[in-house]
């Protein structure tokens, strides 16, 4: 029987380094390997012996695209260990800076990494020749997300102002005022983005995924909530290790995380949307409906619309937070370290990001566990490819390769984070 291998040696427009190998025997897919050759950096090892207060600065360095996610999961886990709960304006400010990261990261993915696939361009630079106004809109929207992060955090990449207990310096109401004006424009631009992405050509590709996301009684989840799935999971963040398990596979530097009972699961915008549609703001719900999405969406290619809806939500929510903001009396609350284990899980733009730290009574980190979103989605990405490739058999290798890359980019995988993630090889015998 005729066999062949499709190889993508260096998967582009994702963050970090990975490759894909698909082996075909006739019309049968016999192997799919998403390989992460991003070199290991050993964060969990060298966090041992560091002071609890260093975790937000150090773990931010795991990822340049979503440093706020790392900082937020770290501060929540440390505060949990030390028995402190941050509420009021400090909590609101954390939600605001996280909205900034969602806007920046989602817009980067929508306009610069994913939209070129749907419109048939190698990159945003080529796309800009035919879609200059769209690209300028995307860049401006992304810039506003970055400006929120910069104003509160000090800089876009690896912000310096986040600390366990709160912030080093908090903005005045006056400082935030210019952002409100920009966000009013951004909210309109995000609405246009939803309408634009809704027109892209989408393959019919639905599956019965298990979606896992945080769920909070009062809000669309960012920093806090219970771990909930559409197939019965409903546990506290502290119970993560009892339900999720990481596997080390020979071909990848990234660990694969699965649900103990049921295997692969999906995290990220699609999961959040399916589990928390009712918590989106009215404007975001309405835009989703106009874009042809119901309260449930199970086509990963449509994640670009969901991401656009979430961007709209983040602009709307950021505006609400700024209007309600009252400057706190203190930039941070006092922390007294104690010998304890702390757990934190927040919604990175790509999905849930879990941190666990064990501290001694001096606040020294004894051990650390970090499970990034891409480790959790890896197995599901492979499963999507197992299902997708047979439908593409009549196409040229070039087209199969591009479609597979696109299916991977549906997940906005962050490979740097996952090492602890891609090339495409399609092999036909």
């Amino acid at each position, binding site marked *: 029987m005729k066999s062949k291998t499709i190889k993508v040696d*260096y*998967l*582009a*427009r*994702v*963050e*970090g*380094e990975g490759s894909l190998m698909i082996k075909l025997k006739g019309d049968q897919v016999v192997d799919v390997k998403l390989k992460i050759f*991003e*070199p*290991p*950096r*050993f*964060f969990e*090892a*060298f966090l*041992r012996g560091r*002071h609890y207060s260093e975790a937000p*600065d*150090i773990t931010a*360095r795991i*990822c*340049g*695209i979503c*440093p706020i996610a790392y900082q937020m999961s770290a501060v929540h886990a440390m505060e949990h260990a030390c028995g402190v709960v941050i509420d009021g304006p400090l909590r609101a400010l954390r939600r605001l800076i996280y909205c900034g990261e969602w806007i920046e990261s989602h817009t*980067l993915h929508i306009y610069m*990494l994913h939209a070129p696939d749907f419109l048939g361009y*190698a*990159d*945003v*630079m*080529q796309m*800009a020749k035919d879609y*200059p106004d769209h*690209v*300028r809109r995307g*860049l401006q929207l*992304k810039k506003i997300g*970055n400006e929120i992060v910069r104003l509160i955090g*000090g*800089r876009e*990449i*690896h912000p*310096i*102002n986040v*600390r366990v207990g709160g912030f*080093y*310096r908090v903005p005045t109401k006056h400082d935030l005022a210019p952002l409100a004006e920009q966000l009013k424009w951004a909210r309109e631009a995000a609405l246009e983005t939803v309408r634009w992405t809704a027109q892209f050509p989408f393959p019919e590709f639905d599956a019965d995924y298990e979606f896992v996301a945080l769920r909070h009684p009062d809000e669309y989840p960012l920093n806090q909530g219970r771990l909930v799935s559409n197939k019965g999971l409903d546990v506290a963040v502290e119970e993560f290790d009892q339900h999720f398990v*990481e*596997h*080390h596979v*020979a071909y990848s*530097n990234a*660990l694969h995380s699965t649900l103990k009972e049921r295997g692969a699961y999906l995290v990220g915008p699609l999961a959040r949307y399916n589990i928390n549609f009712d918590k989106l703001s009215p404007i975001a719900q309405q835009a989703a409906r106009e874009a042809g999405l119901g309260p449930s969406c199970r086509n990963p290619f449509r994640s670009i619309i969901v991401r656009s809806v979430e961007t709209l939500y983040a602009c709307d929510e950021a505006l609400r937070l700024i209007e309600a903001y009252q400057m706190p009396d203190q*930039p941070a609350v006092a922390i007294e370290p104690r010998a304890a284990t702390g757990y934190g899980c927040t919604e990175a733009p790509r999905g849930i990001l879990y941190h666990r730290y064990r501290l001694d009574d001096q606040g020294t980190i004894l*051990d650390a566990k970090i499970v990034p979103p891409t480790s959790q989605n890896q197995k599901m990405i492979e499963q999507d490819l197992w299902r997708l490739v047979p439908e593409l058999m009549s196409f040229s290798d070039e087209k199969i390769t*591009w479609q597979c890359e696109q299916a991977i980019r549906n997940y906005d995988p*962050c490979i*740097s984070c996952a090492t*602890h993630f891609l090339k495409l090889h399609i092999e036909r015998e």
Partner: protein
Amino acid sequence: MASKRKPKLAVWKFASCDGCQLSLLDCEDELLSLVDAIEIAYFPEASRAMVKGPYDLSLVEGSITTPHDAERIHRIRRASKTLVTIGACATAGGIQALRNFKDVKEFVSIVYATPAYIETLNKSTPIADHVFVDFELRGCPINKSQLLEVISALLHGRKPNTPPHSVCIECKRRGVVCVMVAHGTPCLGPVTHAGCNALCPSYHRGCYGCFGPMETPNTNSLSAWWSRLGVGEADLVRVFRGFNAYAEPFRKESEAHEV
């Protein structure tokens, strides 16, 4: 005037967080003009189009941590007219150079269930330890204005203007109150390379050295000052072992406080 060939730019990645190359995509206001002036020939984070070399300018992010990467950097050097390292990983080994002070085998076994699957070098080393580097841009992450300055300068054949003085000078220029003198907050500003515009002190915290050592830093004197502020020896080791732990002045200072 006859149109000139656009210079070819390549962006390479080794062990890193992708943050420094992301700085290029974070130039929202300048990106489209930049693309008018140069050809982005190889930049996998942004494009699936990969044009063959040679390249006029290569930007290298990340440190060397695997046998494969130690080979790959030589191929990149041969294909590059000018090679610039961007960020603390490529310039000083990065945060992952914390392994250089420990047994890497232990690190592998802490993180991975099957250490035999992992291929890694004992040390994380900067690019200049392996090949000739034309220019090093500091920072964890780099400053995007400095990145634009470096690209612009090199494409015009002049020296980039990224001064090697300390963060202290930037603080004074901005009129930021000295956090160490006024509040007794330990600060690495006096020994740290400029480039961030004294960011941390302007947010009421001490500099933690993410731009690495300045030219000829007096780390010994600064440690004495920190000691007077009540910082212990073990803490001094940790302070100098941050994002530029393997840069020589910081490495030596950290070793001087090991007990």
